[in-house]
C-alpha cells in the first residue's frame, strides 16, 4: 500500500504568480489578473527634446493577489538619427508609474560618438527593466516602492533626445535589409513588454 504522501505529494510551487508577455502588435493576452491589450506600433518614432511616450511601452496593469514584486521589462530598437554628428543618437529614458516618474530607473542610451559625418549607423536592440517593490510601508514611487498595488496602474516609458540639432535618436527603426535600405514592414521592429508578478 502506498503512503498517503506518495499519493498526494506536496504541491510544487515557485514565486512567480504570472507572466504577461507580448509584442506591441495590438494583441490581447489573458492571464490570471485579467486581459491586457498591447498597443499596435506601426512605424518608427522620432524623438525630440521634450519627453514623449515611447509607443508600445504603455500598459495598465493590475497585479494578482499576493504580489510582492512586479518586474517590468520593455525591449525596443534604438537608432541614431542625426546626420551631422554621426552615430551617437543620445537619448534618455524615464519610467513612469501612474503618472509619477520612477527616478531610480533613469537611463541614458547612445552609440559611440565617431565624428562629424553623415554615417549615423549606430542601431541596436535595447531594453529597460525595473522591479517594483510592493512590500514598502508607504509609497515612494520615485524609488519604485509601494505599499501595495491593488488596482490598475499605467506603466510606461518616456524618452527624449539629449539635444538638438545634434545627437538625435529614432525608436523602433531598422536601417538595413538584404544589403540595402529596408521598406514597408521591415523599416521598424515592434517593441515587447514582459511583466512578471512575484509573491
Amino acid at each position, binding site marked *: 500500500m502506498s503512503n498517503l504522501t506518495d499519493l*498526494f505529494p506536496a*504541491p*510544487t*510551487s*515557485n514565486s*512567480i*504568480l*504570472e*507572466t504577461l*508577455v*507580448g*509584442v506591441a*502588435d495590438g*494583441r490581447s*493576452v489573458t*492571464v*490570471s489578473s485579467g486581459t491586457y491589450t498591447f498597443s499596435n506600433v506601426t512605424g518608427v518614432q522620432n524623438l525630440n527634446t521634450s519627453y514623449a511616450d515611447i509607443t508600445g511601452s504603455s500598459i495598465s496593469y493590475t497585479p494578482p493577489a499576493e504580489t510582492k514584486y512586479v518586474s517590468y521589462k520593455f*525591449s525596443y*530598437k534604438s537608432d*541614431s538619427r542625426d546626420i551631422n554628428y*554621426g*552615430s*551617437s543618437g543620445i537619448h534618455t529614458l524615464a519610467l513612469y508609474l501612474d503618472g509619477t516618474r520612477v527616478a531610480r530607473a533613469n537611463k541614458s542610451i547612445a*552609440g*559611440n*560618438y*565617431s*565624428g562629424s*559625418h553623415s*554615417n*549615423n*549607423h*549606430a*542601431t*541596436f*536592440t535595447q*531594453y529597460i527593466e525595473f522591479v517594483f517593490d510592493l512590500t514598502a510601508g508607504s509609497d515612494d514611487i520615485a524609488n519604485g516602492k509601494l505599499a501595495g498595488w491593488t488596482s490598475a496602474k499605467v506603466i510606461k516609458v518616456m524618452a527624449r533626445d539629449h539635444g538638438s540639432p545634434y545627437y538625435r535618436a529614432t525608436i523602433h527603426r*531598422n*536601417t*538595413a*535589409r*538584404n*544589403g540595402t535600405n*529596408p521598406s514597408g*514592414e*521591415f523599416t521598424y*521592429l*515592434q517593441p*515587447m513588454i*514582459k511583466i512578471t508578478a512575484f509573491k
Partner: protein
Amino acid sequence: MSNFTDLFPAVSSNNTLEMICGIGDGRTVYGVNNSYTMGTASAISLTTSYQDIQGSSIDYILPDGTNYVHYAYIVKWAAHDYSGICEWRLYFDGNEVNSAYTNNASSYGSSNHGHHLVYINWVFDLTVSSTDYTDGKILKSDWVGAKNIKVMAREYSSNYEARAHWNTWRDGTSSGHPFLDVPLLTVTAYS
C-alpha cells in the same frame, strides 16, 4: 479535525508551462516532456549571404495547453569593418517571421571596435484563428510535433563586415583572439 483540502490544498500554479534555457555548447536540456540539444557555437565571420546562426535553432514541441511561446535568443555581435552593419531574420518552420526582423550596427569608425549583444525576441501567439507566419501567429493545429525556430543573419556588405559569437579582447589583450562568446537560447511556453 482539519478538512482534507486543508491538508492537501490544490497545487498553486502560474501560466508558465515550461522554460527551456541553454547556452550554445551542445548541451541537452530537459523540458517537461521532451529534451532538446542546443547547437554548438564557434566564433565566426558572417558573409553577405544569410546563414544559420549557431545555437539559435530548436525543434520545439509544445506542452499541452500552450497559448504563447516566447523565443529569446541573445547573441554576441562584433564589427569587423567600420560599423559592421548586420541583419537578423527569424524563421518558424522555414517561414520568415517578418515582424521579428531587425538589424544592428555600431557607430561608424575605422577602428571597428563595436561589440554588443543582439536580442532576438518574438512571442508566438497561438490563440489566433488562422496562421500568419509573417506576423508570428500560429494556429495550434499548425504546430503539431516539433517545429523548427531559428535565426539567420548576414552582413550588409563587404565594406561593413560583421562577426558572431566573437570576443576580440580578454584580460587586457587581443592576443589569441577570437575568443568564443556563447549565445543563450530561452524558449518559454505559456498557457
